[in-house]
């Protein structure tokens, strides 16, 4: 009896030109009615062969490349690369440099999560209202970046051995003013959305990733923590003096899109705490050590990683004592977090697919490198 109504599958392209793929990224979706039967990712629209170009430039010239990998969190990218080179060349960073690096990395995390949370709710359909709210806070942080590094988005602020310039005089008062406003904003933002029935209906149980699959698929960052796996490199492998700041790691319950949203909001609160503590104990002294322009690290390889806003951001650099890295590889969290997209999407509807994709929070610059 049931064989009477047959509907043959129907392929649909979400992307590359699509309002909610956060950049040029395409998912070829085979749809049966509203239910998705199969999904295939097509990437590479923004592939700029960054790893090939890096072999042509000196270690210091590569820093602006890392800005453009994940153009929404350039500070964390710089930090990852600079730590890898310092590990390879064995360079020590003065305490003030480390403290400034922590402040900048955490400010960048708040800015990124503002963007991620805002656009995620945008994908569920709220007419840009949450994005405008989070962008208002993000603007304040970007003003701080512009004040210190001169650029809003691709700051190019970290140097091998420390940071490019010291903090300007008016950085601290402006940062304190921002920190006073943030907790109020987070509570208001979370309060508005967490009990919103429509938002709950659209995100609860959508794009679920169980903990075993998360570990097995080498996910990292909010994706991993939302599935209940307590793994944060700032706690597990502290760099730049994270061990002497007191903060906690948020964990989700069942690894669905709603938990990722909760984890990101909580992470922003913890970052605000870290910045407060870092600003209080900002040590004096030089902000970076002198490094020869033609740095020639000894032959060998080094892999250093940072807890970027999107996950574990690693840099694997191989040196053959030449002025330029022999091999320069970026471990991009957005790229690897996408490996579970098919499992999250198949079985749901097109609307769920868009919400799941938004909850992974990908940036195409980092996915395609």
């Amino acid at each position: 009896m049931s064989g009477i109504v047959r509907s043959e599958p129907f392929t649909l392209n979400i992307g590359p030109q699509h309002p909610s793929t956060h950049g040029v990224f395409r998912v070829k979706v085979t749809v049966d009615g509203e239910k998705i039967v199969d999904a295939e990712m097509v990437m590479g629209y923004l592939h700029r062969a960054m790893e090939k170009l890096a072999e042509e430039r000196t270690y210091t010239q590569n820093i602006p490349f890392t800005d453009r990998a994940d153009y929404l969190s350039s500070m964390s990218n710089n930090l990852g690369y600079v730590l890898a080179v310092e590990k390879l060349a064995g360079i020590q960073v003065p305490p003030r440099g480390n403290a400034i690096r922590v402040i900048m990395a955490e400010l960048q995390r708040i800015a990124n999560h503002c963007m991620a949370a805002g656009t995620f709710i945008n994908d569920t359909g709220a007419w840009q209202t949450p994005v405008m709210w989070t962008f208002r806070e993000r603007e304040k942080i970007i003003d701080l970046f512009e004040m210190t590094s001169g650029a809003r988005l691709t700051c190019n602020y970290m140097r091998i051995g420390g940071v490019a310039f010291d903090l300007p005089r008016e950085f601290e008062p402006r940062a304190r003013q921002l920190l006073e406003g943030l907790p109020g904003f987070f509570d208001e933002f979370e309060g508005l959305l967490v009990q919103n029935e429509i938002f709950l209906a659209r995100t609860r149980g959508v794009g679920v990733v169980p903990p075993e699959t998360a570990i097995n698929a080498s996910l990292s960052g909010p994706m991993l923590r939302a599935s209940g796996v307590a793994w944060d490199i700032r706690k597990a492998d502290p760099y730049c003096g994270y061990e002497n700041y007191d903060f906690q790691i948020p964990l989700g319950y069942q690894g669905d899109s709603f938990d990722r949203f909760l984890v990101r909001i909580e992470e922003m609160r913890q970052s605000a705490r870290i910045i407060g503590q870092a600003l209080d104990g900002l040590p004096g002294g030089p902000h970076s050590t002198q490094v020869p322009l033609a740095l020639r690290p000894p032959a060998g390889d080094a892999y250093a990683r940072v807890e970027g806003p999107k996950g574990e951001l690693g840099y694997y650099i191989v040196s053959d004592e030449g002025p330029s890295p022999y091999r320069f590889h970026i471990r991009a969290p957005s790229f690897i977090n996408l490996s579970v997209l098919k499992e999250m999407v198949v079985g749901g509807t097109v609307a769920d697919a868009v919400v799941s994709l938004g909850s992974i929070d990908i940036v195409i610059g980092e996915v395609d490198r």
Partner: protein
Amino acid sequence: MAPPVLVTDHWYDFRDLGNLSSRLLESLADVLPQGAVYVLAAVIGFVASFVIFVLPSQLFVGVYGERKLIARVQSRYGPNRVGPFGLLQPIADTIKLMQKEALTPKSADRALMYAAPALFVAPCVLLFAVIPFGPNMVFADTSVSLLFYVAISALPVISAFIAGWSHNNKYSVFGSVRMVAMAISYEVPLVLGLLGIVLFTGTLSLQGITIWQKELDIWLVVLQPIALAIFFIGVSAELNRTPTDIAEAESEIVAGYLTEYSGMKWGLFYGMDIGYALAASAFAATVFLGGWTLFGLERWVPPWIIFIGKTHLFYALFIWTRGTLPRLRIDQLMGFAWKFMLPLALVNLVMVATERMFWVEQAADDSVVYVFALVNIVAAGALVYAWSRILGYRPEDYPTKARLVETAGGYVPIESAKGGAQ
């Protein structure tokens, strides 16, 4: 039903422009041939209702007001560049849309693609024929004007389907399917909700309902809160306004059935969407907020000004939901229509029937209506809460905060959070 004479019936009395037009038509009746007066009355009706009220409020309330209000919700300014305070922004938009090229894809069905916008505009003009702006400022006062509104509001669904189907583009087919499915499932509870009103007032004519509310000095929103809720959700589903705008959901299917439209063809759809929203708020203002009456004030304040104020007030409700709520998925919407709104509408109908029977049988005096109002409001709250609990709405189960952990060491199973484990 003879139109009530609220004020003096001199033609120069601007409080009721109906006298003016009827006096004008009578004086012309003997001069022009018999059919011409009929046509002239239609032209006056069209100019008065559509050109003077709908078009300006479409532009200045629908485009300008909405963008300003939503901007305020999003803590930004909204259009303030074009003209003083940005007031010329809608005019600028219209001119921009008119001079933009209206593309037609090669594989599209050209005839249908050109017909769809026209079919989308026509019903919107028709809708305003039955809305009473004043005591005798109603163009076509038929005894079934409420039914007329419900009937004509089914036509734009068909033209939207034609628009989506004629593009031969995958996204627009999705959009048109969703639009049609939504319209069918939300028309049933909508009509049942309005049935409650008709049962109470006893007439199907909008003018009759307004006069009923005037005589009993009670607004039907107080008497029938469930009906207003169902009407609002049903109409926002039919017009696909925000909580239910899945027919042209940007984040999922680009622009739904409007994907291939550009230039003034898209402009017509956008303008008339606002027109339908205005028609819906005008209808709601008449039926729920007492139309042109304001507890006796309509003797001094011209009734059509009161009516326009109420319409824009109700339209602000649409703007408010558009600025704040995310969008529901199609299967949730279908479930909501059939499993939540329909039973609620039926129970409301039963309540209204018993009240009406009690009122007529016992021949109680009219003040019993206030008792009914109280009963209905309490019943509405209780019904909605009870029915949602039955359908499995347990807000306390969902955790609203992430768990905080001190160390980073592998998988932390959930032992405490209730309900979080499922």
